[in-house]
């Protein structure tokens, strides 16, 4: 059953010199329980696609539909708080919050009381194989792999159905990269989440259930 659907989605913007069609009439349905990889060269429209799927922007034509509602017609702040989470290559943790506080942030945003948020955040950090010793560390005191795990814990703590990952292993060594991919696959196959990985790493793409190639703003399904 599809949870996130692209319906004839186009995205056009004007830069200083010309009109750019970053995404051209793309249609596709993403389902729960699967890992998708969107691959493509630089400038192929991957970042725009990520922005549209994450509800950070809306298409200039067509619709991105999440569970029967177009993102252009919904409260997109709430959508990002509750339904979708993004994991970035650069981790994007709050530098002045500890690991625990970073994971608590989405819960506090939803109005969960501090005590309960702390408990749930701690559980989530432990579920990505990190121990209590990292709770009070600031991001700069964590390794790249640990930071990415904290970023994943933060993404999952509000129990979203769709997880977007932008080059999630880009800054990690092979071993840590493999661990992160394993976590993402587990999320899709065991916890029935829809995981969409935007990457140019063909090694990761090969581990996905479905590979989509973006080129010149158009999408093509790969076998």
């Amino acid at each position, binding site marked *: 059953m599809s949870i996130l659907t692209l319906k004839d989605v186009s995205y056009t913007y004007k830069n200083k010199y010309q009109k750019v069609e970053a995404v051209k009439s793309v249609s596709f349905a993403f389902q729960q329980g699967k890992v998708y990889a969107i691959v493509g060269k630089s400038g192929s429209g991957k*970042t725009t696609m990520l922005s549209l799927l994450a509800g950070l922007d809306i298409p200039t034509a067509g619709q991105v539909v999440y569970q029967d509602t177009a993102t252009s017609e919904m409260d997109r702040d709430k959508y*990002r*708080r509750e339904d979708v989470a993004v994991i970035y*290559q*650069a981790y*994007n943790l709050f530098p002045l919050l500890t690991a625990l*506080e970073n994971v608590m*942030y989405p819960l506090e945003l939803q109005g969960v009381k501090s005590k309960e948020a702390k408990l749930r955040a701690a559980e989530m950090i432990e579920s990505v194989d990190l121990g209590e010793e990292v709770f009070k560390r600031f991001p700069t005191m964590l390794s790249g792999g640990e930071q990415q795990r904290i970023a994943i814990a933060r993404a999952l703590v509000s129990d979203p159905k769709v997880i977007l990952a*932008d080059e999630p292993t880009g800054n990690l060594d092979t071993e840590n990269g493999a661990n992160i991919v394993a976590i993402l696959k587990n999320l899709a196959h065991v916890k029935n989440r829809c995981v969409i990985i935007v990457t140019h790493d063909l090694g990761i793409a090969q581990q996905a259930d479905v590979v989509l190639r973006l080129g010149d703003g158009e999408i093509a399904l790969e076998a």
Partner: protein
Amino acid sequence: MLHTLKSSLRSASRRKWKSIIILAVSMVLVLFFTMYANAITEHIATLAALHKSIAVTGQITNYNGTVTDDLDIQKEIIRELEASDFIGERFYTRNLCLLTEPWEEPELRELQNRLMNAARLVGANAIEAIPEFAAEDAIQPQYWEGYDASLFTSSEKVCILSEDLLQSLNLQLGDSFKFTIAENARVESEDHPHGEIALQIVGVFSGPAWRKAYCPWNTITAAYEDLGIPLTWDSARFYLENTLKMKEFKALLSRLNFLSPYEVEQDAITGQGRLGFVINDRILTKATGGVKSYIGFMTSLYPVIYLLSAGIGFVVSYLLIRLRKPEFAIMRSLGTGKGMSFLSFFWEQVLLSLLGAALGVLLTLTLVKTVNPLQAFSIAGYLVSYLAGAALAIATMNRMNIIQILTAKE
């Protein structure tokens, strides 16, 4: 809201030197504003002291300021002036025609001539009320033993006479004489109000006021009442109070239908019949001119320095917040609304600038040891303008491309 406040507080406390920059800027600006306000306040105090120490007098005149007595000032005008907050010490005179011979029912024309040429009995409430004796270098009257200038505040039936009158009546100091008195007004009939008054001569004076007798204010007022004629004033001079509020006093004068003689040409016909009021404030104006200019100049600069304060708020906040674009982008990506994200950064600025302001106030108290309303007003103005600038800087964050910041590769 509580969440944003809490995270702002946490962020402000962990940002260390960057927070200290805002604290320091706020503290220095508060110090500047309080010193600035203090300079104005000190000048205002100087102005008030000058107004208190320099005497300003006022005088009722005719319409063009050329005549200061024989004015026929109505009681209502005097009462309204006295009821205001602007009248201090006051000097009044009123007069009657003074005849040395009995009335003897003269015919109308002769009566008109006699009263036109008659001497004057002038009642005054103080020696200073009489222009001939008010000047510092004026020749003062000679008093009979036991009498002095204080006689004008008594109710005795006494008078001081001009030397010519004393000699023509062949009288000496201490003698009493029964005078004929009559209303000093246009004679319309032979039934003109008149009467008699016995006065003891207790003083004599020589020129320039010939054919005049001066008596206490209460004595002439009693004579007016005996004759049954309405109380009017010939002249009225005042020491003015509350001269800082001269505009209000001038408004009162205007309401009482006074003309300003400086605005009426000497030979003008318009305004005749109306009274004028001359305010002698030349010394005060000269003494306070510089102080007033300074206060006016400093006060007029307030909008400019508030604008500068807003500019500083904008620049400081923009420079510091620019480094925090990723934080803002993460917040937005996690579902924090635009308003909440703005508030989260804004509260931080509010907390730090308030704390800096408090430190600035403490520093000011240590340095100048005074607190006044203008300082409080200036600090409040600073906070509003500084935070307005900071708010503008934070608002520019909402225009950034979130996904570009978040997907920037390290």
